[in-house]
């Protein structure tokens, strides 16, 4: 199954004016980053310089969706919503990075916040640090945009040493409703060791959908692989029979054939 319908065509092209003002300041030489000191030093070691802390957010209202109590099914409207909301946030973050002339964004984090005054709505935020190669080579991806990755500074350095370059953060999402068992079924299996086929089937299918969508995104970037894949399962505010499966990872391509990672020193530490 392919991605849900194309993202809305009216994605905002302009960032809020407060953002442009802040980004201008960054273009004059000051850099900001949410990298720790360790990560900062390793990013420099990899030949990149941080440009600025970039972020994008979107407050999205998730519409109601009717569902059949007794059937396991994907709730496509909710899937679309979760996908679009995250895309909006990520796109704004990428726009900020492009504004700074970045080659990519590292350490991307995606957060979801709920506020009491926003029922059925949530704020989706994407954060990261935009970086640029110091030797002027362009690291933009197949779509001509700065790469995004949720790799930490350490992982980014290690990846570059192996001759691979990040292309983009890829994600696939699927919101699945798990059928409630009929009363007779529930009573019948009470107290026994037994597999619950609808649960198994539902969770299996949902995870597969999420991961396939993620791989499709990687395909669009002409990536040779995905590293650091994480599978997250959250119920957000929908109750325990509706779960969002989010599969997220960094798509990479191989650049050169050599691996420059030096032979590691193996140690056994004897202190605690």
């Amino acid at each position, binding site marked *: 199954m392919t991605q849900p319908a194309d993202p809305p065509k009216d994605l905002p092209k302009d960032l809020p004016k407060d953002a442009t003002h802040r980004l201008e300041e960054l273009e004059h030489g000051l850099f900001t980053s949410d990298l720790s000191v360790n990560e900062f*030093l*390793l990013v420099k070691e990899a030949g990149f310089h941080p440009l600025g802390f970039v972020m994008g957010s979107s407050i999205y209202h998730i519409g109601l969706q009717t569902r059949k109590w007794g059937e396991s099914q994907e709730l496509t409207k909710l899937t679309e919503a979760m996908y679009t909301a995250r895309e909006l946030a990520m796109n704004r973050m990428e726009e900020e990075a492009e504004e700074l002339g970045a080659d990519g964004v590292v350490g991307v984090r995606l957060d979801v916040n709920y506020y009491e005054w926003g029922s059925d709505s949530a704020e989706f935020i994407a954060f990261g640090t935009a970086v640029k190669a110091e030797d002027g080579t362009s690291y933009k991806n197949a779509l001509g945009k700065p790469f995004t990755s949720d790799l930490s500074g*350490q992982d980014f*350095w*290690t990846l570059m040493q192996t001759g691979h370059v990040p292309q983009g953060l890829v994600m696939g999402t699927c919101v699945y409703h798990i059928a409630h068992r009929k009363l007779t079924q529930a009573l019948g299996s009470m107290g026994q060791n037994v597999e619950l086929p609808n649960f198994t089937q539902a969770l299996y299918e949902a995870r597969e959908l999420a991961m396939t969508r993620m791989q499709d995104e990687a395909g669009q970037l002409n990536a040779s692989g995905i590293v650091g894949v994480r599978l997250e399962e959250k119920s957000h505010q929908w109750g325990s029979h509706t779960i969002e499966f989010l599969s997220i990872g960094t798509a990479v391509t191989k650049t050169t054939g050599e691996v420059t990672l030096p032979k*590691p020193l193996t140690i056994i530490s004897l*202190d*605690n």
Partner: protein
Amino acid sequence: MSQSSAELPEAAVRRFSSGAFSSGLTVPDFAACLQLGLEPVGLVQGFCVMQWGWYGAGSSFMRGSNPYTMGAQSDGAYSESYRCPHGYVSAEHRMWGQNLEQPWVEAAWSAGYGAAYARMLDEATALGAHGVIGVVDRVTPVADSQTSEFHFLGTAVTVEDGPPPAAGVPWTTYLAGQRLTKSIEAGFMPVAVVASMASVRVWAYCITEYQMEGGRGWGNTNQTGEVEQVIRAHMAVRQLARKHVRQKLVGDALHGVQIDVEKRELAQGDEVIDCTIRGNRVRRFKDFDVVPSPRPTVRLS
């Protein structure tokens, strides 16, 4: 500094004479301890419940002087006065304010802490220990107000082939295990666990009261401003705590300092601020050789 305690409680005598030791050390700490040539001889503790009177003896209040009158306290304790800039407004308008150090509270705290500490040392001496490591100290307020319980717990140790403790007083430290090993390797010998406390009371005057209660005051419409009186009290209490601790150091260094500040907001902008500083008093016993810069590493797992 320390008060002599009554005889050891009977239960302590029984526990000590049993021969086997008990210790509060974890297994790695125990191993490190043996590596240092320290032999645990028993778990020791000291205990004291202290009460200080409300505006106890010696305070300027009890001496009949009004805290609202301007004038430093006669015992040299910190105090600062504030005077209202307005003319007469009303009987409730607070025309005077003062930041007052509360030496009676500090003295009571010191006495309680000292007594509990001394009792722990008594137990250690009864076991023939040279020092006490892994000290844990707790100060807990008890149900009634103005009462606190001081509790010390530690593991008494002897140093292999070591001399009896100087002046008959075992040395003590909060550290144990690897951290104690590193401290010794770096050339620092623990002398004692040291703690001091300072307490300052803020009697707010009109401006402070308005600022702390969100009032707009006179001529102060919709602006923010720093609350000077409260800030000065906070800075003073921290400086005083450090000053008190320094007096106990006699030139030795204090490592691993922990500073705790507790404030209780009372009505009308008044506040009581207590600041406690604890740390390990240490003495350099050998020249310091600087270690070379360590090599940074990146872990692969």
